[in-house]
């Protein structure tokens, strides 16, 4: 196989304290390849965009530190730590010698893809290690020159190159080098020699997060900064039709009222003054009609809207056109992201450049939207991404950056502007509600002869600014809504999945794991119903229907491991029972056994056993953390969370009334086992959300005899 030389770009650091080496990471590598592979697979992730030749910068300073400029953002998923592990491994440096920051767009071309879809570590697995290894070889070549020995006679270790009895640090080597010799991509380290990869290295950001270091978009400020507030409608479908600002003029601290065609905002000297002024602006909102929850529920029904068969094996319709068909319907509600850090931005628009500091999952898209809105070349707009106070898909849409920029341009000073909590809840890009219709037929031996999952959902990918408008036409089905919607039991002779789609009058979009949570809740609850009908052990019943291929075998291993670890018991013990469910998402199989008790009408999750095979865990501790977090976020959504529509207002608008899992609800035991099934990292951050709702509902059935077919799970 021909190994190509990589493209490297060299910049001198200001003040001559080192160099910045920028390396193209997409050329022929797995990020682009995996995107294209995904684009052709039914589970295509849509985190597309311009992927032409972006650079990743490594800053090597004379004090022998490397700063990695990450084109992906850290939103809690721990990928910064995994990236440092991968870089340290091939650079032959210690973890402490490498730090990682978010790449600003002014550093050059950053890929147009978002951070999302559980793709960061998997996508960088090959390219980041290759770049780091190449750079190590570059340092060896220059180091050998400076040491006056042959390149073959030097060794790299802990940030130094040694040979001929002498040594130099990387920081010393880079000094004065402007013309680097770039070798062919070296062979990567054998996994048995890994020092950092595959080890539970402590999160690199843990100390900053424990000692209160300013690091989030909300923490940003600039000299001479003012505060902006935008008046946002609280009703669905409301269109801006002008505003009465007469009461605002002369209010304390007010600097300017910014009236645009599509919004009105106010800029003031302090946040409190901006919010006070905002309250007395009277906006004329035009609405066409009044919406209620019942209208939304009536719209999201299997049989309504556009449909597409997304999976088809055998003659499911024929097999189900007979006596003895088992049917059930499931539902899930509108869900809010409810991330703790509100959306916002600090913008400073000057005559010839603009700077925006903020939490975003779509760095390049944010930049082009801002550039277009303020009429400036994108190259002159610098997006400075910060750590995210939660992402979960909420920051894949960032019009707030444009609004901050418009207000900054209007006053000629930096402006900070962010959503209040009511706006966060009402202007969220919600997880769409779903409706599921399941049908199956058992044969004389109690095996499934035919299985059909039809489901209806609002937009996830459709109408998202993240994907090209033609994607819907090409793909036919909403690839976000279809996550987890296919029947994963390939040994069922006849099975199919049908997707129904309706766009709702408010924004629904990406919510961590997309359709996976609701689809798995429906399918895995129904599998439990079928196992009980067939009089079989629910775990064996699932194993009996797995196909014998790699995906089937990996899921089987995960299922058996969960069963054995939890010592699964199919019978309730008093008011306690276990429930089982599993799913494969983005290639990662995961199984949960939930140990649940019921007191009165309260469902309590006491313990969850989780097994997952992400292919390979670069950082097993953080993969476990993602499982723990997904289990708790998933149980929160399954058991408590629900937005409703009341006279066109999305409600509730505050934590508390929007009930979520708290400390007292979280399982006291979470036992996670990671299986490295392929040796290559795959998706981690979303797959473990899938099975939790069904696992809990299946346990509840064993205790109470009530089959809960609607999220949030509520006992009669």
């Amino acid at each position, binding site marked *: 196989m021909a190994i190509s030389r990589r493209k490297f770009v060299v910049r001198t650091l200001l003040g001559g304290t080192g160099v910045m080496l920028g390396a193209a990471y997409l050329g022929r590598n797995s990020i682009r390849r995996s995107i294209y592979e995904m684009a052709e697979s039914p589970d295509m992730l849509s985190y597309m965009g311009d992927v032409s030749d972006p650079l990743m910068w490594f800053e090597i300073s004379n004090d022998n530190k490397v700063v990695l400029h990450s084109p992906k953002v850290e*939103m*809690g*998923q*721990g990928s910064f730590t995994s990236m440092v592990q991968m870089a340290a491994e091939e650079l032959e440096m210690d973890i402490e010698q490498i730090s990682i920051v978010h790449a600003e767009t002014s550093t050059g071309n950053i890929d147009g893809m978002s951070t999302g879809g559980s793709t960061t570590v998997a996508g960088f697995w090959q390219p980041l290690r290759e770049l780091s290894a190449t750079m190590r070889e570059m340092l060896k070549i220059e180091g050998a020159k400076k040491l006056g020995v042959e390149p073959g006679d030097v060794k790299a270790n802990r940030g130094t190159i040694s040979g001929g009895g002498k040594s130099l640090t990387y920081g010393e080597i880079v000094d004065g080098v402007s013309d680097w010799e770039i070798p062919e991509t070296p062979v990567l380290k054998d996994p048995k020699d890994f020092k950092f990869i595959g080890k539970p290295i*402590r*999160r690199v*950001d*843990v*100390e*900053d*997060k*424990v*000692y*209160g*270091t*300013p*690091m*989030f978009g*909300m*923490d940003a*400020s600039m000299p001479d900064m003012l505060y902006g507030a935008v008046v946002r409608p609280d009703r669905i479908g409301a269109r801006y039709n002008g505003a009465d600002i007469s009461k605002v003029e002369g209010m304390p601290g007010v600097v300017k009222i910014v009236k645009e065609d599509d919004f009105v905002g106010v800029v003031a000297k*302090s*946040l*409190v003054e901006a919010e006070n002024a905002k309250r007395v602006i009277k906006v004329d909102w035009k609405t066409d009609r009044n919406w209620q929850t019942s209208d939304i529920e009536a719209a999201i029904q299997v049989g309504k809207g556009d449909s597409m068969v997304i999976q088809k094996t055998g003659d499911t319709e024929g097999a189900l056109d007979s006596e003895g068909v088992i049917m059930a319907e499931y539902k899930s509600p509108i869900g809010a*992201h*409810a*991330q*703790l*850090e*509100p959306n916002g931005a600090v913008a400073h628009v000057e005559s010839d450049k603009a700077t925006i500091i903020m939490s975003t999952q779509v760095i390049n898209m944010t930049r082009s939207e801002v550039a277009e809105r303020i009429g400036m070349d994108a190259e002159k707009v610098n997006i400075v991404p910060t*750590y*995210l*106070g*939660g*992402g*979960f898909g909420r920051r894949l849409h960032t019009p707030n950056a444009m609004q901050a920029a418009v207000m900054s341009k209007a006053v000629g000073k930096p402006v900070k502007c962010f959503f*209040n*909590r009511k706006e966060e809840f009402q202007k969220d890009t919600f997880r769409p509600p779903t409706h599921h219709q399941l049908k199956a037929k058992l044969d004389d031996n109690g095996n499934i002869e035919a299985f059909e999952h039809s489901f209806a959902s609002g937009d996830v990918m459709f109408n998202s600014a993240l994907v090209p408008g033609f994607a819907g036409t090409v793909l036919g089905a909403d690839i976000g809504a279809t996550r987890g919607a296919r029947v994963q039991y390939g040994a069922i002779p006849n099975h199919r999945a049908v997707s129904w789609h309706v766009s709702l009058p408010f924004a629904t979009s990406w919510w961590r794991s997309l359709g996976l949570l609701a689809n798995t809740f429906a399918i895995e609850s129904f599998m439990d119903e079928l196992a009980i009908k067939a009089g079989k052990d629910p775990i064996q019943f699932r194993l009996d229907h797995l196909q014998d291929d790699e995906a089937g075998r990996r899921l089987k291993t995960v299922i058996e491991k969960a069963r054995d670890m939890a010592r699964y018991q199919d019978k309730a013990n008093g008011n306690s029972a276990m429930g089982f469910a599993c799913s494969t998402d983005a290639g990662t199989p995961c199984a949960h056994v939930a140990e649940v008790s019921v007191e009165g009408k309260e469902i309590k999750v006491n313990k969850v056993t989780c097994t997952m095979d992400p292919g390979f865990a670069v950082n097993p*501790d*953080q993969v476990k*953390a993602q499982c*723990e*977090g*997904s*289990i*708790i*976020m998933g149980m*929160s959504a399954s058991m408590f969370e629900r937005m409703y529509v009341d006279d066109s207002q999305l409600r509730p608008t*505050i*934590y*508390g009334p929007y009930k*979520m*899992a*708290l*400390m*007292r609800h*979280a*399982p*006291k035991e*979470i036992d996670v086992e990671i299986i490295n099934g392929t040796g290559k990292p795959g998706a981690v951050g979303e797959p473990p959300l899938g099975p939790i709702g069904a696992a809990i509902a299946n346990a509840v059935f064993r205790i109470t005899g009530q089959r809960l077919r609607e999220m949030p799970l509520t006992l009669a």
Partner: protein
Amino acid sequence: MISFTINGQLLMVDVEGDTPLLWVIRDLLDMKGTKFGCGKAACGACTIHVDGEAVRSCSYAVKYAEGKSITTIEGLGTADNPHPVQQAWVEEVVPQCGYCQPGFMMATAALLNKNPNPSDEDIDKNIINVCRCGTYYRMRKAIKKAAEINANSITNS
């Protein structure tokens, strides 16, 4: 003028008395460790100590802080001299996104002051902040570890 002590330092601020203490801390005093989450005392991201009591500073007018002693996450401890809660949080690698964590640590420190060895039930009743990443499982371990660190330091001293 309103005067109070914050992290051991006596300060006077010239600000409208109804201004939430959170914004005085964040915007006037430029200490960003205390977070804004909801503005209605519903999530706990802004939890600080006022005279040792856990207080949700987004809904606490600055005028009520007159003459009182305030502690924020910056005053709880530092990397060189961590509070036992922070030490436990690092050892258990609790944070994910990290945004809600200062509020949880402040709530925990206040709980441990009153109840050095809280039971699971005490933790459930007193630690009622919101974490969206779902770090509760590790937090519970860290709270117990912090109690142990406290107990050991008392035994040793």
